[in-house]
């Protein structure tokens, strides 16, 4: 076998992350001269499998119900032992991040996460990732195989469609549910339909916003005008002004919008680590020396309280 396997939790569908994951997997498989396979878990696996079959050589679906950490890990371990891939690539959702090191351990491989590049040098897998909160970049050599790697899937280009669609198979696994740990309630806090990571425009607020109200009264109407999603810095989330799901940064969402509008965000490196793949960054900040401006395409040095209401007026006028 020794293929490259990508592993996906099906709930998000064939989104930008799934497409980027397949693209990264295909390029790695090509450089190894091997096939690209996909493992799809969870509800929605069959729909996602048919989309994936257009870009991967073989899809295996696992009918394991909703994600449970221990049961899912056991299923994935068993399947990977049967398939014995050289590399397993996962995306950067919660479940993939949680499962990656444990899967590597069970397979006797090496794991690494948050990769922006994966390639093979001779027999050795090498990955590139940001370290020190985005201040530096490291190339890491994996010493064991399989390489089990979660990547910033959305920043990878998608794969080209195949001439002939790949085969779809359902895995026959017999995994008893693990009763030690189980998820008893799942709550989705979404902002409309799109996810922050899929957003084309993001309006984001930081500590300088000063409280929860301006997020509602000032930033939200601006975001609505731009068809944007809302984000926030860690400081704003830790203050409890907005939900933690809005957090952008090293330990929050890694986003890839066309425009990231940072309002009253200083731009600490851990925050910048979450937006390094944004096409354009713009900022509104009172401090001309704020680090955020070093990463901006354009910006304005001014109190956001003065700028944002006026900006909304100007945007409405331009819409006409």
């Amino acid at each position, binding site marked *: 076998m020794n293929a490259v396997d990508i592993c996906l939790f099906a709930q998000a569908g064939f989104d930008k992350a799934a497409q980027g994951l397949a693209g990264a997997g295909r390029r790695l498989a090509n450089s190894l001269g091997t096939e690209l396979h996909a493992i799809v878990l969870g509800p929605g696996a069959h729909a996602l499998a048919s989309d994936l079959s257009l870009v991967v050589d073989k899809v295996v679906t696992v009918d394991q119900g909703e994600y449970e950490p*221990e049961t899912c890990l056991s299923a994935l371990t068993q399947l990977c032992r049967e398939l014995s891939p050289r590399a397993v690539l996962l995306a950067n959702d*919660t479940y993939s991040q*949680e499962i990656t*090191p*444990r899967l590597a*351990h*069970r397979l006797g491989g*090496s*794991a*690494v*996460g948050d990769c922006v590049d994966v390639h093979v040098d001779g027999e050795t897998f*090498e990955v590139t*990732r*940001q*370290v*020190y909160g985005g*201040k*530096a*970049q490291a190339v*890491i*050599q994996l*010493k064991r195989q399989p390489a089990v790697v979660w990547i910033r899937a959305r920043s990878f280009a998608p794969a080209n469609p195949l001439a002939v669609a790949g085969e779809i198979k359902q895995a026959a696994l017999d995994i008893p549910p*693990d009763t*030690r*740990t*189980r*998820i*008893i*309630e*799942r*709550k989705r806090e979404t902002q409309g339909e799109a*996810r922050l990571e899929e957003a084309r*425009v993001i309006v984001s607020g930081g500590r300088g916003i000063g409280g929860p109200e301006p997020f509602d009264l000032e930033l939200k109407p601006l975001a609505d005008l*731009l*068809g944007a999603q809302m984000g926030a810095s860690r400081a704003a*989330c*830790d203050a409890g002004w907005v939900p933690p*799901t809005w957090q952008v940064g090293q*330990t929050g969402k890694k986003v890839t919008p*066309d*425009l990231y*509008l940072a309002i009253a965000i200083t731009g600490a*490196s851990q925050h910048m680590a979450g937006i390094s793949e944004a096409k*354009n960054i*713009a*900022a509104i900040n009172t401090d001309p020396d704020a*680090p955020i401006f*070093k*990463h901006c*395409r*354009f*910006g*304005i*040095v*001014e109190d956001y309280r*003065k700028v944002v209401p006026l*900006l909304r007026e100007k*945007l409405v006028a*331009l*819409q006409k």
Partner: protein
Amino acid sequence: MNILVCLKQILDPEIPARDFRIDPVKHEAERGAANLVTNIFCENALETALQFREHHGTGTITVLCYGAATAEDSLRKALAMKADNAALVLNDGNQNPDPLTVARVLAAAIRKLGAFDLIMVGREAGDWGAGQTGGLLAEELGLPCVSFVDRIESNGGKLRLNRQTDTGWELLETEVPVVVSVTNDEHNVPRIPKVRDVMMSYRQPLTQWGIGDLDVAADEVRAGNSYYEVAELSIPEKESRCEFVTGDTLDERVETLARRIVEVTRAL
């Protein structure tokens, strides 16, 4: 409830990028003028443990570090925050051991320290940010693991864990023993210890072990790179020059800002 919290001492990640230097040979950051601090997510874990103990009125909290001799300061601070016991495993080999090495050392130290119901780590460290200690430690100890937890409550003999997901949150019920990785939220911002408690903490006993005191393959641990190795470390060049929008009045400047936004988004 016997709780163990793993702490990592790191270079202060808040130092400005302009002061950040790397040692291209050793493949690590230069200390420079930066302070050594406890990794913030480890402190979030400790704070979560302290609140759990306060809420339930009982429990013992042990803090554990694997690191340089300076890591004693992280443990003393944790004692000042009112952890009960502290243990330091001195790293006398590779100062940046890979995640599997760290997990093996921590697992061996935990076995030697006793039996714990709840083993807590931070979700990742502010230096290398690998985010693997929790998962690998769970595998080394043969325990279940839940990541990105921000609140823990006792429910009979079991634990209720609230954890953040990329789309919201989940509530889990788990048997003990369990390994939990903790993330930040508004409730677990670490408390500041009193000056008096910091001074007092230096009088408290602190267990100190070397690698040789633990049941691990000492040579492999000292090499610290059987799992992965940093082959290159660099500071990426950023080439971005910010255009500060110009105009005689605020109105004109914001008008330009609006036009720039429309240009790059084409959303209107």
